[in-house]
């Protein structure tokens, strides 16, 4: 079956595209400024003016959720970019050269991985200070060993192929072979890794924001919005429900999409 005929894949991809659209144009669609406080209308239930209600400072939740999506996707993609910036070359070099280069790279990655992810990220954020850039770097660094391993495994699968040997026999350099031969043939599993990593990066980044270690108020991603709703959510559940709804509908489809691509790749090999 073609991937684009798989209903689960299509729905998941559609939902993710919708999220990306809202993140890009949300600021423009939002009915109110995300940080405008109105003390006359605090904790209002959803109605026709405030579709998602208001928070304890009278800020419009729809506008805050839309602005939060922009931040969430920004640090998600940013962190994955950092991940691949480090993980992709390390993984490819490890797989291509093997031997002591491989050993050295992988042991270094092991040392990074011997820290619990959340703790390592917290320590990086403590040094770098709590803001968007630190958040992207922290999440990216925490996850880059895992990306490096995945890329290495995927590249090792095709390392012994005849066309790699052919390229070497033609006298192509290591850089060419790695990026023009190894990378394109291992692109399937790397794509799966991209989706999975993006979902984990969003979850970890949102968790840091929930703990107050990331973006600072009045800016808030979905994690920080759930944190802000802590004191009010039993009286005004909408303050917590909408951010939760948005983060869940972004992360679950990413997992499903990765799962479908993975299935598709395995099916393709079996046939």
């Amino acid at each position, binding site marked *: 079956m073609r991937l684009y005929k798989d209903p689960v894949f299509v729905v998941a991809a559609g939902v993710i595209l919708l999220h990306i659209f809202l993140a890009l144009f949300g600021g423009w669609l939002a009915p109110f400024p995300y940080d405008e406080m109105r003390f006359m209308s605090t904790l209002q239930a959803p109605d026709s003016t405030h579709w998602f209600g208001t928070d304890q400072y009278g800020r419009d939740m729809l506008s805050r959720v839309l602005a939060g999506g922009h931040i969430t996707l920004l640090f998600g993609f940013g962190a994955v970019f950092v991940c691949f910036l480090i993980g992709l070359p390390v993984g490819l070099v490890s797989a291509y050269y093997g031997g002591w280069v491989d050993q050295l790279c992988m042991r270094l990655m*092991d*040392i990074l991985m*011997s*820290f*619990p*992810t*959340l*703790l390592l990220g*917290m*320590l990086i954020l*403590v*040094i770098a*200070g709590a803001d968007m850039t630190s958040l992207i770097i922290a999440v990216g660094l925490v996850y880059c060993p895992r990306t490096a391993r995945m890329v290495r495994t995927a590249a090792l699968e095709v390392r012994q192929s005849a066309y790699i040997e052919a390229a070497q026999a033609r006298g192509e350099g290591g850089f060419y072979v790695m990026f023009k031969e190894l990378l394109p043939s291992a692109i399937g599993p790397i794509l799966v890794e991209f989706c999975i990593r993006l*979902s984990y990066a969003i*979850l*970890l980044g*949102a*968790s840091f924001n*929930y*703990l*107050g*270690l990331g973006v600072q108020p009045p800016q808030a991603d979905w*994690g920080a919005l*759930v*944190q802000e*709703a*802590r004191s009010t*959510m*039993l009286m005004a*559940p909408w303050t*917590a*429900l909408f951010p*939760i709804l948005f*983060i*869940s509908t972004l*992360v*679950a489809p*990413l*997992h*499903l999409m990765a*799962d479908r691509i993975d299935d598709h790749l395995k099916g393709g090999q079996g046939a």
Partner: protein
Amino acid sequence: MAVLGSIVLRLGYTALILACVSLMVFGVTELLPGNVITMILGTDASPQEIQRLTALMGLDLPAWQRYWNWVTGVLQGDFGMSLRMQQPVAPVLFDRMAESLVLASVAFVMVAIGGVTIGLVTALFEGTRIDRFITGIAVIGTSLPEFVTGTVFVLLFAGGLFDWFPPSGYHGFDEGVFEALRHLFLPAFTLSIVLAAYVGRITRTSTIDALRSDYVRTARLKGLPEFQVICRHVIPNAFVPTVTVLFMNIGWMVGGIVVVEAVFVFPGIGRLMLFAITERDWTLIQACALMIAAVYVFSNLIGDLLAVWLNPRLRLSSN
């Protein structure tokens, strides 16, 4: 002998990792922005005062010597003085650690029971609606962060929809076993979900493999009742990977526990660490980070050793 050799090798590796971890934790606090002395004395302290405290805290020593003093202190159970709490770090640290261990243990039991149940049910009903439904729920469960599941549970069971559990706090077993368990239930359940779903998936695969094996076919053909086939032939074989995965992922909970403690205001090591960070209490940050990392490294070690011990094939292949 080879087994013993590999265990010794593994222990040596663990010691090396711990050394790296302690260096990294020390290095982080070296880089910490903000001068500790001005933090304690304030900006208008006299130069003499600054000099006196610098010498008193040993901050005039070179970095390697301070690292050495710190590590030897830690090995003797002395984590230094907290900058904010005006008392030694060690007693507080061990108290909070004990509370976190209680929470993690309850969560571990939940993971074991939940994961095995999910795995067995989905395997025995493979391909049916029940299988698809539970597997779907499990996928969603693994894809949500603890602060989301925790918040949803509070909204559902701790005052929002139903009022069965307290939304936050924990005061230990002094208040009675029932009260303590009521406070522990939601945090532990939140902590267990991701891992239970994962263990469930592993159990499902290994149970399906066992169900399709030759020895199960033989057992059925010789006329054993299905119940006995499952209890005597399927379960013992299917559970080796389950137990292995269960123990190899104890370390995984270490990360989740920080968030869960923040959601449920649970007085464990995770919240102590967060307190240390917001207060910039660097002795406390060092102590918490080292403790959390050490627990993580050791539980991974135990998981690895158990995996070798439980799996005869791994044991033999190391020969």
